[in-house]
Each structure stands twice: as C-alpha cells, then as structure tokens.
C-alpha cells in the first residue's frame, strides 16, 4: 500500500517531506533499537515511541522509509534534522502502539 494512502487513512501527521509513493507491505513495532537493527526488514514502517537521533540513524541504515511516532510523540530536534538529511519520513499518530499496529495491520492485510 502506498505510504500516502496510509497517511490519509490513519490520519498521520507528516513532519517532514515524505516520499509518499513508497510502497509499504509491513511494519515493525519496537522501542528497542537493537531489535530494529537485527530484525526489521527494509521497506517496513517503523512504529516506536523513541524520539531520539539514533532512531533516524537506524532507520536510514536499515532502509526504513518512514518512522511513525506513537502517542503524539515529538521528535528531538536532532532526530528530525537527521531524518531530513537521510530522507526518512517522520509521521505522528495520536494512537498508542497496540491500536496503531492493529489498524495498520488490518488496513494492509485487507488490501493483500
């Protein structure tokens, strides 16, 4: 599913210039950076409540096109700066992790 459609259907706030044509097939929800480093797949959406700079760095290393900050998370200034440099989209939802994952999972899997 196109990132633009996910943004629209799940009411995500876009904090920087996102590549909205990106095709998203799955997501990875984690607040542990080592798990994301070890297990997340490229082109997955990363769902987290971590808001520090390393999040943008790891997303870029793992070819993760977009990070969704749950609970209306506010990225640290240097996280956003880094995300801009690395072309990682930073998106925000007011939902908590469980509900956001659930809605995204059902949205993507209905389409497949």
């Amino acid at each position, binding site marked *: 599913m196109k990132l633009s459609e996910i943004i629209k259907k799940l009411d995500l706030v876009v904090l920087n210039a996102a590549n909205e044509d990106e095709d998203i097939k799955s997501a990875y929800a984690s607040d*542990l950076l080592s798990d994301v480093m070890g297990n997340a797949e490229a082109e997955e959406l990363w769902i987290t409540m971590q808001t520090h700079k390393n999040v943008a760095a790891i997303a870029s290393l793992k070819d993760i096109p977009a990070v969704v900050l749950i609970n209306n998370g*506010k990225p640290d200034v240097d996280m956003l700066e880094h995300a801009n440099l690395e072309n990682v989209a930073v998106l925000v939802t007011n939902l908590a992790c469980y509900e956001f994952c659930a809605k995204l999972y059902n949205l993507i899997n209905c389409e497949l």
Partner: protein
Amino acid sequence: MEYLFEIEGANFSVAGNASSTIKRALKQRNVDPAKIKRIVVALFEAEINVVAHADHGTIRVLIEENQVQMFVKDYGPGIEDVDLAMSEGYSTASNSVREMGFGAGMGLPNIKRNADVFEIESIKGLGTNAHIIIYL
C-alpha cells in the same frame, strides 16, 4: 515496620527485588490494592534509577500507620538540573539502559504522578537523595 535494602548499580538482574519485597509486605498488611500499586510503581522507578545511573545506593522504607515513606539514596553522578530531569522525555540514560527497556525519560515523572510528596536533592558528582511519601 522498617525495611533497608542495599542496591547495586548496573545489576539489572536483581533490580526490582526491593520493590517486590515491599509489595508482598503491603499485601500482607491488607493495604488497598490501588495504594499498593502507587507505592510500588514509585519505588520500582526509584530503584531502577539507582541501578541505571549510580554506582550503588540504599533504599529505606518505613511502613507506618497512615503513610509509607521511602528514602532512596544513591552514590552516583547526581542530576545536573532536577527540573529538567522531571520533564517528560528528558533522559541521560546510556544506550544499554535503553535496551533494557528503561531510560525513556519517564521515570521521575512516573514517581511524581504516584507520590503524595516527592522531594529530590542532588549534588553533581556525589549522588541523589529522594524522599517519597504516599498516604494510606
């Protein structure tokens, strides 16, 4: 009733043992479960702070007729700016602490939320003293 615990810095495998002991003691005294939860959540966060940041520390808990008092003293780096540390999301935790599931800057705000009285004083380079009271 008075309880005293020695807390070892960086030893996450026993972190929480003090809070667990206090939880059992409060249950035995038939304290209201909602109060127990507030007490042990505040104490557990304080205990984790000692393990995450300090070289070592002590926890003294006084279970009294009308209140529970907790004195948490640590020998660690101290907190440079207590007001800043109290704000949501502010953290100086190391990456390894973050990978243990802590250090997201929610610990002190969580203690404050649960405590009736929460006083904290810190001397940089020496350590931090916290005093938490929850009324029964």
